[in-house]
């Protein structure tokens, strides 16, 4: 299962390294969202730096939607879905591989967005341990749930509109938890943040298990 996962993740990341769609389109989109927040909220009154945790994670969520769509668009052409099914790879491995590839891309995106908020919103980053662990937990949670709902919506004519409707309410706990944990870290009260990291871990685990079990049946139907 883990060998198959490594194969799939490697394939997706190689595709990304050669096509650079996430780098050339999703990352600029995420930065654009940061700039749009500055337009929408008054940048002079410190609202941006106070609201940084929320704005940061909203930007991550929206960009994650694009990354997930992309991860399944590459499987939709030329009957790739059938090829995956016939490849003899373990469906659980395929799920973990795709989730891992999405997670790696999200992690890169989160680092860039972190630099973005530090520079653009002049947010002082503090509580590094909590920040990094929160990012890891939230990335795993978003990738795990996103991959499961991504394959649900994949191959449908309505996938672009369906995925946000399905995924965003489900990811609401992730947004709450990661935002609160970031707030705790930035305000220096790191002790308040750790329970939220626990919630992220539980969420990620639940969805990884659901994905490992449910991905096979979903991949079978086209």
């Amino acid at each position, binding site marked *: 299962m883990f060998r198959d996962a490594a194969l799939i993740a490697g394939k997706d990341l190689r595709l990304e390294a050669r096509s650079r769609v996430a780098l050339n389109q999703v990352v600029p989109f995420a930065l654009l969202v940061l700039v749009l927040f500055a337009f929408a909220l008054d940048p002079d009154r410190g609202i941006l730096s106070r609201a940084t945790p929320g704005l940061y994670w909203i930007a991550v969520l929206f960009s994650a939607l694009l990354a997930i769509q992309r991860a399944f668009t590459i499987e939709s052409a030329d009957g790739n879905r059938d090829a995956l099914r016939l490849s003899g790879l373990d469906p659980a491995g395929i799920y973990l591989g795709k989730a891992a590839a999405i997670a790696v891309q999200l992690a890169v995106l989160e680092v860039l967005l972190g630099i973005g908020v530090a520079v653009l919103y002049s947010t002082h980053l503090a509580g590094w341990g909590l920040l990094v662990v929160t990012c890891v937990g939230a990335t795993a949670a978003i990738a795990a749930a996103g991959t499961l709902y991504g394959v649900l919506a994949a191959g449908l004519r309505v996938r672009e509109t369906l995925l946000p409707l399905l995924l965003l309410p489900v990811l609401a706990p992730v947004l*709450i938890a990661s935002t609160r944990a970031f707030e705790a870290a930035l305000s220096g009260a790191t002790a308040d943040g750790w329970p939220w990291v626990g919630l992220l871990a539980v969420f990620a685990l639940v969805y990884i298990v659901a994905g490992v079990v*449910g991905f096979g049946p979903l991949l079978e139907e086209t």
Partner: protein
Amino acid sequence: MTTHLTQSELPPGAAGGRSGDGVPTGTGSRGTRILGLVALLGLVFLGLIGLWASPEDRIQGNLVRILYVHVPSAMLAYLACFITTVGSAVYLWKKSRWWDLVAYASAEIGAVFTGITLVTGMLWGRPTWGVYWVWDARLTSTAMLFLLLLGYLAVRRIPAAAPVRSKRSAIVGLLLVPNVIIVRQSVEWWRTLHQEATLFANGLESEIHGLMLFAWFVGVVVFGVIFAWLLIHRFRLAWLQEQIEEHGLERAIADRRAEADAEAEISGAAEAADPSPTEPGTDSNGEAAR
């Protein structure tokens, strides 16, 4: 709703088989008519109890009466959600279309009841708190439940082959209750970190007058009956719709064939009556042109 389906085309256990009155020309049966009548009478009774017989609340005044609708619909919304998850699980396990459609019907009615809960809650909240909406844990998680149900219903309506749609919506339905629990829990933590008391802690549960408790109980029973009535009808409707999806095309083709045959017979009869000699190829040409 009327259909042209006959009893023979419906598998056992379908709407027609269960209705007990032969050809399913509608979704009603004797059982559901009685159930519907009970629901109607119950509603009238609930109206009498809730609006006249029960006393005003000491703190909330007449506003308490809206809760006789609000609380039962909230309970049934969660019940519907639970039924959807159970139905989805059984569908995935046994591939039973019956359970698949039960899950669908339940989710749709659940969305309606969640909507009623939200609207009545807002109507209650405006005079009580001065605003329609507060970011209370309960309100927020109910709103999220509504959105999750809408997501499920969106999957039910995707234009795809029936097995694909059923399987995908079953996975979404299976995750419905876990999602509701996770969302509810996280929203509760989120809010309780900011404000300690929940809104229902005082006023409602503290001391309930006997007749008020009775009205609330009647509300739960009546709404339960309405829920059952809606569920049965919605299920039968879904079943009939699926039959049309499955057999509709075959039936339309058969009808067109029959029409063509009838026309051919008429023209054949006219040709036979016509004494002028025709070339041998005419018939097949005419057929091809048609």
